[in-house]
């Protein structure tokens, strides 16, 4: 049985993958294809769209991993003795 917190981490990863596909297919892809209208920009779209979408997905995963444990488990870290 997978640890509850590890499972949470895996769920966040899967959500990150979903965010990647939503971003690249529905937001960044259409936006970039509309904006760029010449070579070499159009030739770079197969790279630019995944790069930017990946950046957004990674940002989502990072933020989710940072704030989710605090909200869900009230995990505020160890108390540091002065």
């Amino acid at each position, binding site marked *: 049985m997978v*640890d509850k*917190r*590890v499972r949470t*981490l895996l769920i966040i990863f899967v959500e990150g993958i979903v965010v990647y596909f939503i971003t690249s297919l529905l937001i960044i892809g259409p936006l970039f294809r509309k*904006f*760029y*209208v*010449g*070579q*070499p*920009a*159009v*030739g*770079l779209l197969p*790279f630019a769209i995944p*790069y930017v979408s*990946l950046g957004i997905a990674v940002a989502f995963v990072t933020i989710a991993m940072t704030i989710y444990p605090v909200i869900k488990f009230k995990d505020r870290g160890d108390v540091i003795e002065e």
Partner: protein
Amino acid sequence: MLLKNKTILEIIWIVAVIAILGWAAVSNASYTLSHGDNIANPVGGDPEGIVINVTGYQWAWQFQYPNGTISTDKVVLEVNTTYTFIVTSKDVIHDLYIPQFGVQVYAVYGHPNQVTFEPLKKGTFIFECVEYCGEYHYEMRGTVVVV
């Protein structure tokens, strides 16, 4: 600790990061090596397509067509035609940027650079100087009209 004794998870993490960074590096390198003309380079060799000489100066852009016609802050291009801009400067360093074509080339006095591109859609697009070049730097912008 959360990930204690989770060796497989750590390996997946490391491999995934290496795979993503490796893919980014390989795709960047392969594109750069195979599309050298689309990246600004010092003038050399036979320029591709129609050559337009571009001169940046404080504070405007001048375009000289192959027939000798000169226009300022406006350039008219034909759709689906390959152009090479040979860009230089009369004074300080400028930087010609046409975002919608993915073109950016430095204008340096005595050091012409060239870049090749091709408009694929009709319309009017903005270009501008993106290297701070003096008090009226913001005036160094104009339009590319693709017909």
